[in-house]
């Protein structure tokens, strides 16, 4: 196969299958990302509020929300009066 610079992924695609687990993982991340961003589109939310809205375990909300902050989709807002929980909002 001829290898074109900038399109070398095609070369590896011929030689290597993407495992189903990796495809499923991506699907799951996309689902969570969409759900989180949609929820935050409506209003700024705390992790507790997101957990209830998405019906998802809290540790998973933390992990995915922090990842979305890292990827530049979300940002942290204010902390509550007890200095315990932050509010999170979409990055404008």
């Amino acid at each position: 196969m001829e290898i074109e610079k900038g399109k070398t992924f095609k070369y590896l695609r011929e030689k290597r299958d993407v495992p189903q687990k990796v495809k499923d993982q991506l699907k799951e991340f996309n689902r969570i990302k969409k759900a989180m961003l949609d929820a935050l589109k409506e209003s700024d939310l705390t992790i507790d509020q997101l957990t209830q809205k998405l019906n998802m375990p809290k540790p998973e909300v933390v992990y995915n929300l922090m990842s979305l902050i890292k990827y530049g989709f979300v940002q942290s807002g204010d902390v509550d009066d007890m200095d315990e929980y932050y509010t999170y909002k979409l990055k404008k």
Partner: protein
Amino acid sequence: MSILQKNISFDALVVGGGIAGGEAALNLATTGFKVLLVEKELSIGGKMIMLSKVFPTLDCAACITTPKVSEISRHPNITIYTSSEVSNIDKIAENNFEATIIRKPRYVVIEDCTACQLCEQACPVSVPDQYQYNLVGRKAAFIPFSIASPKAAAIDIDNCILCGACEKVCPTNCIDFTQETEEIQISVKTVILATGFKLFDPLLMPRYGYGLFKNVITSMQMERELAPTRPFNTVLRPGDGKVPDKIAYVLCTGSRDASIGNPICSQICCMYSIKQSQLLMGALPMADVTIYYLNIRSFGKGFEEFYQQAKGMGVNFVKGKIGKIRETENGNGNLILRYENINEGIVKEAEHDMVILSVGVLPNQDASNFFKKEELKLDSYKFIYQADSLISPARTSIDGVFVAGTASGPMDIPDSILSAGSASSEAISYLIQK
């Protein structure tokens, strides 16, 4: 696997690019010797580059490591292979070793990558970031961390869906999926083993609940939470994103405990926990921090003062042996520590909202598999055996092979650097002897 029988010669092979291996390589290189530094990770710097600040001076770890690492990377006498491991080393004669190095593909041409992160932004995949100890995600096309050296992207091929998005946006066309594993034959005159240490895996102590209770984390995860390049916006509980205010440290997790196979003291956990407690008091001024300890071993220069400083700042020290950690039943994610108060001789319970396990130092036994013809002896704790630990601590059971840093036993950064100095001096003497 594409086998490249490159017959390349160096004066010295240094295995492991942590602070000890890096320092040893630098000493040899500045003396004029040609060095090959082999590192299995995507970046050199070892554990030190991941730390927040260092005890007992509280200097910023990145500020010390970055210039050192860039000096190592830029030195004309040092060749660095990252993502690489040694498969075997044979001693042919004195001053004559042959080694095989396996170099895994990074799928990025390091020299051409500008670390612009466009590939990272384009990549749709998200998987746990091993360099943030899984507290947050990273992409399959990623720069390992902001102070990585080399600072270049890499493709995590095991999690890549081969969509090509990264390649499409890369402005320098440096992503190359045709790269293959290389097998490189080299000859060297001396070898320094600086393969460092492993961290105790707290999953092996289920009674502490690590893995099960998300607000029980390791000291390395707390290092990341306290570092400027931290995974969260501030120190947070991974279980629910709460800012913790009643934090407990469990010292000697996986150290001084024959029942889990590690009877020795890790030498660094007391001090790094005291360091972290001070940093936490700075980051969260309202927080209570309690350190549960068996003995505080503040044996080094400035260590006792550092310990007293923590006490002065209000860190609570309890001489107590933790039996079990469980979560409260009301679902608030807090943790109940059941412990023997050693001074009072009674069993007590205390509630905390976050627990940090001060995990110990374990030997990395990789180096014992490198040598097929000679025997690289390990000591009774499985660290690399020091053939003459009093007079010539860098010597191993094989002449011409030296050990640097924590590959020979637990030690902190200054001692690792001293040990690297000893290893490089011994290696230089060996190189110039005829």
